[in-house]
């Protein structure tokens, strides 16, 4: 589904990703962990098409297509969803209008007619129920004045509306209380199909109890320095990153 080869990424001439290789097959769940500043969010943003970052080397293919040539909106319509670590507040843009435009753009891409107003509202209702998000929030401008946890919930709500093939969830767990974490994780699991894949970026094992990864990677200093099964997350939880850092000092 997704294939990243020797990806190098810089910002303002400073290299942040230094040769990433990653293969994700349909249906797989990968977790990416790693210390602050390792480059996890950078990787996620590059997948979504943020042009702030310059890809200096390497390639990314998604379902056989060259992702790096696509505009962010085209990537989204092809099925990539980025759950932002820091969702943006957009005063004056209503959540309803935002989602209606986005859903209909996706439909257009698939050759479908725009949804009727009543069908759209029903879809909203169903997906709101799935992530237990309050109408008080979806009636407001996008993320405006939302708490940290509410913003994260809203990301998953948007994911539910758009039903992506590959979801990249960047620290979706941070800021969520224990109940909300369970709701959000269950939401993600319910949205998962046999061929959809997920990349979960997280610092905590806790989330991985719910969204169980097939593979865990450690990203450190712009490189994937360790890849193993889900037991790696437990080991990191216990020992921290020092041993990884030490191993990579040499």
């Amino acid at each position: 589904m997704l294939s990243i080869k020797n990806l190098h990424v810089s910002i303002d001439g400073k290299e942040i990703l230094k040769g990433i290789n990653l293969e994700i097959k349909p249906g797989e769940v990968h977790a990416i962990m790693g210390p602050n500043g390792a480059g996890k969010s950078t990787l996620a943003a590059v997948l979504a098409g943020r042009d702030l970052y310059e890809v200096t080397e390497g390639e990314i293919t998604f379902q056989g297509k060259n992702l790096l040539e696509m505009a962010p909106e085209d990537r989204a319509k092809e099925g990539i969803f980025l759950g932002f670590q820091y969702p943006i507040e957009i005063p004056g843009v209503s959540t309803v209008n935002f989602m209606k435009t986005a859903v209909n753009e996706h439909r257009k891409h698939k050759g479908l007619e725009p949804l009727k107003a009543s069908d759209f509202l029903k879809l909203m209702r169903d997906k709101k129920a799935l992530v237990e998000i309050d109408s008080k929030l979806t009636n407001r401008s996008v993320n405006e004045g939302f708490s940290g946890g509410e913003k994260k919930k809203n990301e998953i709500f948007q994911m539910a509306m758009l039903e992506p093939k590959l979801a990249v969830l960047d620290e979706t767990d941070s800021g969520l209380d224990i109940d909300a974490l369970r709701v959000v994780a269950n939401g993600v699991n319910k949205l998962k199909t046999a061929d959809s894949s997920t990349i979960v970026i997280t610092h905590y094992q806790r989330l991985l109890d719910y969204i169980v990864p097939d593979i865990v990677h450690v990203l450190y200093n712009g490189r994937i320095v360790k890849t193993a099964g889900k037991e790696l997350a437990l080991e990191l939880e216990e020992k921290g990153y020092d041993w990884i850092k030490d191993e990579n000092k040499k």
Partner: protein
Amino acid sequence: MADINTINKDFADLFNQGKQLLMEGSSEIMNENRSKAFQDFERLGVPTRANENYKYTNLIPAFDHPYNVNLRYLKVDVDLNEIFQCDVPELDTNMVLLTNGWFYGNNKQLLELPKGVIVCGVQEAAQKYPEIFNAHYGKYAKPGEDGIVALNTALAKDGLFIYVPKGVVVEKPIQVVNLLRSDRDLLATQRNLFVIEENAQAKIIVCDHTLTHHKYLSNSVTEINVAENAVFDLYTLQNQHLNSVILNSTFIRQDAHSNVLTNTISLYGGTIRNNHHVLLDAEYCENNTYGMYLMDHKQHVDNFTCIDHAKPNCVSNEHFKGVMDDEASGAFSGRINVRRDAQKTEAYQSNNNLLLSNEALINTKPQLVIDADDVKCSHGATVGQMDEDALFYLRARGIDEKEARQMLMFAFAHEIIEKIRVEALKERIDELVDKRLRGEISKCNTCAVACNH
């Protein structure tokens, strides 16, 4: 190019040679004001950039042109009511037409106005209702402080008069359509007077626009007195063409417990200068002064505002927002005076600008003169580009770049549209601004508010 002295001298000649025609048909009080204002004009002249208040707007190119001036009403050869019969059903208004600054002679009678409400031409009002007219005409505008106001007062012959008597609530908005229609380049002078009595309520929508492509300079002055406890709204929609110059000066005086909302929306016009003066002349007034400008090409807009808190316990909210593209330029100047006795004043002001190109330019200048000590005042100005993070967020959900930009621009402008207190008008302006931001309206030949084509 002519220099300013030549321009001023041409006006002096026009005044002296046209004196007979100017005086004819005008009431004594108008002519008294006229003579005084002409002296003011001789002293002040057309303001140049040397004048601090006109620092950002060069009026010389606007005035340096051989315009025609009509010193008497010219009969219109077509039925303007025919041209403006179209109406959006949900925006139900009392419509009145003016042509080149004059009250249109064949206006339909406004049958749905409540008893006692007067809507007519200024000349007619001066003759038929001298008691009301003389009590207010020339009482609020300040020709001694601004050359173009002096020029207006010196040349003014007609315009719109609206009177709402005590306690009368005019439910339907009164829609004023100012048409510029001429077969020659034209300088139009328009003088309006609106008198809203105690406990009365009225909403006025003014649409400016041009019917032919000639070069126009319209110099209008509107005086408004809002008496105790009255509620008054004024929505001004400026939609002309790139070859037009709009000089629009408004003077509002508010009495105790009155509530005024103005919203000046500049959609299109070559050069636009709005002078907006508010005098809060008694306690417990509320004033809301809003404005929005959407400029591209080489258009220029200058909003010069002055809110004068003369008495204690008044609140003023001022907010102007602008979207500037291409080589458009503009200025916002927000003066707030809080006089010495005006304790417990609350005065808020902000001006936000979105620049879409590197060539677009805006000068924004708050100017607070506060002589009282117990006041709450704030002001803030921003000039910025589109928020790239927000843009990416929308695009990351599958919304294409053009639409995402549109959504953000519209969201930016909508904050001002939201303040409109006529629901149907709000929807109409939303639609209009959305189209304008999409570049779908360059110039509207028909009434932007009333017509759908």
